[in-house]
């Protein structure tokens, strides 16, 4: 044990730096061979006390929801308020009917970005009807509207405050950090506990997920306002309020539009998942399709979500990119007005709900196509799936589940200490021990091995594509729009192709998380390499470096920070997706969570599995984040 803990401190005996790491690896391997299959913590569905305690708590809460003062005077009111807001939106949208919504959305699009965006909005709204998903789409739209409105109502003031005050920012940052690394699945069970299930709980879950970017980007926008402009305003005797409204907010406007955009995007990807706690909308169709492994049911709903995402994204981005001085021309105003009036005028004439005979039903065709792909591509997909499972996934999983728990804990401690320093290492260790106490050790280890394999693939592909894009502008120009599109899509959508190609297995989750996490990794790597100052590259080139030397000796080392950040992001995103993969056969923690929602007796296990997921996320984040944040001597700047 003593030899194992010593590896954290760098060797001072004049050995090469890798010697300590290699030595530690040998010690761990030896310990594993000796202690294998002792002190393991196998999973048991009923035994663990925490599960039962939570299940009982839920029973108690369900019985007392209307007596207990905390619920009676506080939580229930929040629920009622959010529910009322949702009903209001819902009623208005239904009253508008499809002609009204089409007209109004088109008009908004026109005002935001001109006639092309208007055409996109009109086309997008019509597509919901064409896909035969009018009602679920409107439900989703209402839910997103409520969640975004609440997120902005809370997030923007908080963000402004954080942007103005460093103290508030420092207090908020760790909270937001945890909120962002928390896998989406983990929110749901506690929310169901406090807010019951249905639209209000779904809106609140969506809001929690969508609020961090609203706060963060607003704070960034406000703190990025030119200090000279602020000082000039103060020097002329402006009050704090005047400076806020006449200087800060107008100057932060376009960046804050980005905050709105990001909030909407996050809300859209969460709103689908919120269906697990019975929030209405498109999520229902997707989850139904997932649980029956029927791509035909999922696909139209998935397409509708993507269309909604693209539509709202382009509308808000147009707003953000608009020239600050441009005023809306009279022609644009007239066009937008005409569209809105036409839509509203047609409300009494046309049916409210999209006529069903105009909808295209593709369920059968899609299912056939998937079946065709399954049979014809079977050799290839099965080979990839089986090879990965046999070579990487199974050995890793059996290693982690058969090793004694204390050995795994020590390995985590050592690795985190080496990469991130002592404090993050202790946090990581605490998370791991908490997982053991919660009784979900084995499932957590299984999820961790799935995550590890997915991260490996994500980083390999991400680095390759990122470097390629950084070196070839042409490749980058082709890749950028693909990445943009990929990042607009809600997380759930990625399960679709994975499911179609690989059926319900662990590998499906890995595939989905790889395509989910690769785009941001590629982007971070590319930006990191591009951010290397041109003068340094020039200097290296003028010294006669080959392109390969330039990459290995200059660009990659200088982009180290960005690459580590990419790794960290990749891990957090992968974990989130692997857990969602519980819906398509990834098993382990994700499946526990899903089971918790469907089986009342397993609610406790699902709830605890959610907590374990968060702990796992924090642990993985701490293991990898330190390399990025470890203070370098240059960072200690004096102010």
């Amino acid at each position, binding site marked *: 044990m003593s030899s194992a803990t010593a590896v954290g401190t760098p060797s001072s005996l004049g050995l090469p730096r890798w010697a300590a790491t290699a030595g530690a690896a040998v010690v761990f391997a030896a310990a594993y061979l000796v202690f294998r299959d002792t002190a393991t913590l196998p999973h048991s569905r009923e035994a663990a006390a925490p599960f039962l305690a939570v299940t009982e708590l839920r029973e108690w809460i369900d019985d007392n929801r209307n007596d207990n003062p905390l619920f009676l005077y506080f939580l229930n009111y929040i629920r009622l308020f959010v529910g009322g807001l949702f009903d209001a939106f819902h009623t208005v949208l239904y009253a508008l009917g499809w002609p009204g919504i089409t007209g109004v959305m088109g008009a908004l699009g026109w005002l935001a970005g001109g006639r092309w965006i208007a055409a996109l909005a009109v086309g997008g709204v019509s597509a919901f009807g064409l896909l035969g998903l009018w009602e679920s789409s409107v439900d989703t739209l209402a839910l997103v509207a409520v969640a975004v409105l609440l997120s902005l109502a809370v997030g923007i003031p908080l963000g402004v405050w954080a942007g103005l005050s460093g103290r508030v920012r420092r207090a908020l940052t760790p909270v937001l950090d945890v909120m962002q690394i928390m896998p989406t699945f983990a929110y749901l069970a506690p929310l169901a506990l406090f807010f019951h299930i249905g639209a209000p709980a779904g809106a609140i879950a969506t809001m929690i997920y969508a609020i961090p970017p609203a706060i963060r980007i607003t704070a960034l926008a406000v703190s990025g306002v*030119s200090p*000279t*402009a*602020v*000082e*000039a*305003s*103060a*020097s*002329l*005797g*402006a*009050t704090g309020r*005047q400076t806020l409204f*006449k*200087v800060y907010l*107008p*100057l932060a*406007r376009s960046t804050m539009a980005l905050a709105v955009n990001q909030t909407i995007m996050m809300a859209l990807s969460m709103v689908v998942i919120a269906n697990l706690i019975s929030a209405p909308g498109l999520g229902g169709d997707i989850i139904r399709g997932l649980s029956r492994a029927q791509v035909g049911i999922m696909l139209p709903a998935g397409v509708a979500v993507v269309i909604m995402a693209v539509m709202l994204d382009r509308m808000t981005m147009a707003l953000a990119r608009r020239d*600050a*001085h441009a005023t809306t021309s009279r022609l644009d105003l007239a066009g937008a007005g005409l569209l809105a009036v036409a839509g509203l005028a047609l409300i009494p004439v046309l049916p409210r709900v999209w006529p069903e005979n105009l909808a295209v039903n593709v369920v059968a065709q899609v299912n056939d196509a998937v079946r065709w792909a399954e049979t014809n591509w079977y050799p290839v997909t099965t080979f990839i799936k089986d090879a990965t499972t046999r070579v990487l996934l199974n050995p890793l999983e059996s290693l982690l589940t058969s090793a004694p728990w204390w050995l795994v804990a020590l390995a985590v401690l050592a690795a985190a200490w080496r990469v991130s320093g002592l404090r993050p290492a202790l946090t990581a260790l605490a998370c791991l021990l908490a997982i053991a106490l919660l009784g979900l050790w084995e499932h957590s280890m299984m999820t961790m091995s799935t995550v590890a394999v997915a991260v490996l693939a994500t980083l390999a592909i991400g680095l390759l594509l990122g470097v390629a894009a950084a070196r070839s502008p042409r490749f980058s120009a082709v890749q950028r729009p693909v990445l943009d599109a990929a990042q607009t899509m809600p997380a759930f959508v990625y399960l679709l192709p994975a499911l179609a190609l690989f059926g319900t297995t662990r590998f499906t989750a890995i595939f989905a998380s790889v395509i989910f996490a690769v785009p941001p990794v590629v982007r971070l790597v590319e930006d990191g390499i591009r951010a290397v100052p041109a003068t340094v590259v020039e200097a290296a080139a003028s010294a006669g470096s080959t392109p390969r030397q330039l990459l290995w000796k200059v660009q990659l080392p200088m982009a180290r920070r960005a690459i580590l950040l990419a790794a960290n992001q990749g891990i957090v995103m992968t974990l989130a997706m692997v857990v969602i993969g519980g819906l398509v056969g990834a098993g382990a923690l994700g499946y526990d969570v899903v089971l918790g929602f469907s089986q009342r007796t397993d609610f406790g296990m699902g709830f605890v599995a959610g907590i374990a997921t968060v702990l796992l996320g924090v642990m993985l984040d701490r293991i990898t984040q330190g390399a990025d944040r470890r203070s370098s001597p240059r960072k200690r700047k*004096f*102010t």
Partner: protein
Amino acid sequence: MGDSHSAAITVEGLWKIFGPKAQKVLDSEDRHLDPAALREKTGCTAAVRDVGFEVRPGEVFVVMGLSGSGKSTLVRCLTRLIEPSAGEIRIGDEDIGRASPTRLREIRRHQVSMVFQHFGLLPHRKVIDNVAYGLEIQGTPRAARHERAAEILTLVGLDGHADAYPEQLSGGMQQRVGLARALAVDPQVMLFDEPFSALDPLIRRDMQAEVIRLHREVGKTMVFITHDLSEALKLGERIAIMRAGSIVQLGTAEELVGAPADDYVADFVRDVPRSHVLTLRWLCRPPEPGESLDGPELPVSTVIKDAITASSASARPIRVVDGGELAGVVDRVDLLSFLSGQERPVRAGA
């Protein structure tokens, strides 16, 4: 120099120490440590150290120093954009240090305005609305403030640019907007924080001329911060040279160039063409017995290079007069030996 009530700005014992333990440092003897030692020992930085001066009404007072000498902090302390750690500041009859936030805002709105190095214009507002900003926050109605802003735009030579946005203007024109914004509120005192150092040399010369012209036309008291010695000499009636937070010398251009207080100032002014700055006051000597006193007559404030023409026109020594009385004489030998850099150090008459 005059009693404190006639001064436009009076500063006494002003300190500004940045850092967590500023007050403690101020109360201890540590404050006399040199900057590096102070930072090492306490983690604090003394940006302004025991500075005192007076600015006369209508004067252009220049504070000159290299970057990090504390001059920008000093000018911000004058209206408490940066809160001073200790010391007295009076602007007119107003005790700035004890002014309430409301009173301070009133002073900033009506009495003192500032021009910034990076302009600090609001990019989302048209030029005219930038200029009218000070009036707007005072609550002046739109029509009135636009009328005033238009007048000021004419004054700074920006006619016809009222509806442009700042980013559409060149750097020099943007700073004219900054200047107009400061002028629009009709302050008694204008503070300039290195206003021209972000501009091209040619534009900078234009803008300096502009400030001189405006000073002549509107007659405001001006405090001008710069790191450029030639700018200081050109604009400043009196110049304070700052180093490491303290004023090392305060005087007219002549005094700085003719009698630098220490090696630091001497080093600064070494490349200044002395004949362009020093006046005949520095060169003239009592007439020797028998020397003819019927040569051309020049006032003592004549710059030496301008005396050369008169001297070449007449072989007789120049009579240097100070308000009608003879202050001394200067002949060709004096001038030539001065120009060749051999002149004896001469003290100005008190």
